[in-house]
């Protein structure tokens, strides 16, 4: 039976814990663990800010999240109330003017309950 994992990311993209989260997801996929989803809460929602401009020679967290979404179909759930408090809005979803990257799914805390319930293991960073 395949193992299942959910991740909760509460740290911003410039935190090393975020890098750890990304590496953990990638290794888990390598080991055939099914990622039920990643939930972004607290300052973790800033990972979805598509206008963040990180110098080229630094770690590009957003590119890694996009890769996980596009290539491995890892659902990236954004807590909308935490996001709105930090200047991210979904009112412009699917609109080029939205400041939320389209790799992310706008969700609520109910999704955190779902992921917690469905995954065999939950890791918070």
């Amino acid at each position, binding site marked *: 039976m395949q193992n299942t994992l959910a991740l909760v990311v509460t740290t911003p993209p410039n935190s090393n814990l975020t890098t750890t989260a990304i590496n953990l997801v990638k290794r888990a996929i390598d080991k055939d663990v099914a990622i039920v989803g990643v939930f972004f809460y*607290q300052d973790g929602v800033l990972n979805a800010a598509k206008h963040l401009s990180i110098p080229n020679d630094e770690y590009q967290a957003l590119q890694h999240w996009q890769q996980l979404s596009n290539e491995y179909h890892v659902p990236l759930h954004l807590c909308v109330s935490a996001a709105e408090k930090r200047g991210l809005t979904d009112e412009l979803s699917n609109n080029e003017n939205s400041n939320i990257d389209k790799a992310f799914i706008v969700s609520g805390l*109910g999704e955190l*309950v779902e992921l917690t*319930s*469905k995954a065999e293991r939950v890791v918070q960073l």
Partner: protein
Amino acid sequence: MSAAIYEEKQTDKTIAIVNTQAPFSSADGKEALDAALIFGSYEQATSLFFIGDGVFQVIGEQNASAIEIKDYLKTFSALEFYDIENIYVCQQSLTERNLMANFHIDNVQVLANEAFSQRLHQHNVIYRF
């Protein structure tokens, strides 16, 4: 992979929400409470733990408006309506901060280190704020 695969494996879990930060120095306490109330509204067995500076969140007679902050501590009174009845506070953390057991909510259980740890380990999932 479809969501249906996971549905069958859905299990009843017990959730511990561990509070480690003072109430008004960051949004951690409020965001932990928001999460706890959602877990409660989905009828998940949820307990609250307070340790370290987190114990300041349960101390009574605080005046958040003096520093222009909305007093989310009032919302703690809603916990009982969400069947969140297990609220554990670390005795040592209170002692280290010279705090009396003057709490703004009922049903608080003050526990020594070992009992606190035991209760925490009875839960399947631990979220730390």
